[in-house]
């Protein structure tokens, strides 16, 4: 028999459970006393916010599913019934629909933070890659969820996106037929999308768990991008970061509430309030805003297969980011050139998002191509070269003493003046 856990909890019930299954000890270790770098800024809120988003989406989704009917003849009306007759159905639906947008905003900022502070670098490569997996799964889930109300954009979006697979040589058409469960987007498609839309959030939850396991092995990165050197560099997660994350959660909910209650259809396309009609194509088929940058990359190539490959590559490249970036320095604060290039990268992403919502003509095509070119240039060319060329600024010695060790005028890293190395701090 394996040994019982020696629990330190005093409450007899908690102690009894913890002795047999030490989940309380685990929670205490991972979320209570977990040593966390003390210098996080508010960008470090977004992991917790993403977690909250996922929980909100699952909670509202489960209740929506109780009132939704996944059939082409009934789906649209069942959603309207939720909006009109189900108690607080409109609230559930608007929270769920706008919750998807909030989730993507949060995750985009979360990814930006990882890029800006080099959180993907050793030893956090796997942590970052798991994050990209979550992002991909979110995209699939959001796409299938958007199909469920069976409005015009649902139907035509599903048609356009599933048709992308037809670009695959030889087997493409067969794959599309297989995805649809027929010869067009129809009831079998809606049914399987509903099933998968319900399944995938739980798969995401699983990968989120792995993401957190990996995080708690390597520990968090921090705005300085240097390793934790001593206990003085850290604070216990609770109450310091539970308190700090709570502020982020409040602000997040405030923004969320303003959208849900005062502009719930701001991010929704009017055409999705028209029931799906296979005989009428909307003037412009546009995906949800959070897909627009990738949609723009897709359309920046006149060749369908080329566009599809480029679009998937634009995300796939992220899996290789830990090795494409050859600089040993994590944080942009100490990388004067990278710090500026990442702004251009963000700008190109925003431009792609803007272009993705416009008709593919004239200046928009040019802009889309320039921004797409920069996206790949940034990751595949500039980052590998930059690590070799860039001269990083001197790194601070530790988190608790973010004093930059400046080389004396005369060059070289000579000994420090007396005062700078004096006594380590007693207490953080």
């Amino acid at each position, binding site marked *: 028999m394996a040994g019982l856990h020696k629990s330190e909890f005093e409450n007899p019930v908690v102690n009894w459970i913890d002795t047999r299954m030490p989940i309380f000890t685990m929670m205490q270790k991972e979320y209570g006393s977990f040593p966390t770098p*003390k210098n996080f800024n508010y960008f470090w809120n977004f992991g917790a916010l993403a977690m909250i988003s996922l929980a909100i989406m699952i909670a509202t989704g489960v209740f929506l599913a109780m009132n939704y009917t996944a059939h082409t003849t009934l789906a649209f*009306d069942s959603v*309207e019934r939720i*909006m*009109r007759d189900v108690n607080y159905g*409109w*609230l559930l639906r*608007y929270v769920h629909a706008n919750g998807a947008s909030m989730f993507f905003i949060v995750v985009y900022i979360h990814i930006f933070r990882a890029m800006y502070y080099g959180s993907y670098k050793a030893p956090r490569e796997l942590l970052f890659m798991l994050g990209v997996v979550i992002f991909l799964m979110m995209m699939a889930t959001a796409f299938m969820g958007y199909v469920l109300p069976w409005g015009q954009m649902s139907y035509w979006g599903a048609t356009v996106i599933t048709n992308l697979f037809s670009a695959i040589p030889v087997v493409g058409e067969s794959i599309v037929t297989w995805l649809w469960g027929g010869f067009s987007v129809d009831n079998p498609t809606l049914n399987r999308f509903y099933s998968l839309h319900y399944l995938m959030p739980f798969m995401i939850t699983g990968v989120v768990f792995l993401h957190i396991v990996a995080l708690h092995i390597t520990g968090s990165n921090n705005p300085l991008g240097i390793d934790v050197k001593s206990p003085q560099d850290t*604070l216990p997660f609770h*109450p*310091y970061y539970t*308190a*700090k994350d*709570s*502020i982020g959660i*409040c*602000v997040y*909910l*405030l923004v969320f*509430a*303003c959208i*849900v*209650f*005062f502009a*719930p*259809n701001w991010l929704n396309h*009017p*055409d999705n*309030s*028209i*029931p799906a009609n296979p005989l009428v194509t909307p*003037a412009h088929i546009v995906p949800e805003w959070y897909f627009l940058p990738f949609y723009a990359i897709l359309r920046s190539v006149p060749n369908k297969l080329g566009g599809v490959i480029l679009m998937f590559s634009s995300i796939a490249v992220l899996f290789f980011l830990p090795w494409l970036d050859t600089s040993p320095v994590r944080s942009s604060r100490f990388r*004067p*050139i990278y710090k*500026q*290039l990442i*702004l*251009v990268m*963000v*700008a*190109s992403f*925003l*431009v792609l998002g*803007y*272009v993705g919502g*416009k008709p593919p*003509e*004239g*200046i*928009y095509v040019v*802009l889309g191509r*320039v*921004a797409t070119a*920069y996206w790949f240039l940034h990751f595949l060319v500039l980052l590998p070269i930059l690590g070799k060329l860039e001269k990083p600024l001197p790194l601070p010695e530790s988190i608790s003493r973010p004093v930059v060790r400046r080389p004396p005028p005369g060059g070289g890293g000579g000994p420090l003046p007396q005062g700078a190395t004096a006594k380590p701090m007693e207490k*953080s």
Partner: protein
Amino acid sequence: MRFAPAVALGLLASAALAPCALAQGHEAVSGPKEPWSFNGPFGTFDRASMQRGFQVYKEVCSNCHSMKEMYYRNLSAIGLSEEQVKAIAASVTVPGGTDDSGQPVERPALPSDHFRSPFANDKAARAANGGALPPDQSLIVKARENGPDYVHALLNGYRDPPPGVKVSEGQYYNIYFPGNQLAMAPPLQDGAVTYADGTKATVDQMSRDVVQFLTWTSNPEMETRKRMGVKIVIFLAMMTGLTYAVKKKVWKDVH
């Protein structure tokens, strides 16, 4: 490397200026922005206007346009009494299932019935409207960009076609309709309905009233939603302040 932010700005600026570079072709003009009573976080519907709007819908629009998502019982929300709703429902007959011998029967509608559709099906609707299908109006305001302004503008947007423009048979010229030609004849004329409250039934007045009504049918939850939103935003603002204070206290010994 000072040029990098310039490049970033340049990219963004060119995106912002891009629309100017596109020749504006035969796009319909967008309608004027109206100060609707339901605009803004505290906006509410104008009950009297909604009731007049329902009258316009009932007497004019509903001859061609269905409103399938609505029930007669919903009308109590625009300020009609239970008796009035019953009477309005009873004024139309709807399919009432079958009698004992299996023959389909009709019966007066009840408040629990959906609004009766003017046509039995889409094909019948097209056949009666020169091939065009009058769209269902349950969600018409939500289903158009800037819905309230658009519907109002469209109803006031009929004009004689400019010289050189040929309007097809059975089509009408409207400056606000995409493509400028639509199959709906100008539905409103001054005095098309007689308002019980004495309001003068001009085309503009009727179009404003019907927009109030249609905005409500698209967003029946709007007033509840905004009222709840104001309370929740106030609560969250206080919560944010409180949380900030707690965080300050927790962190005061750090650094």
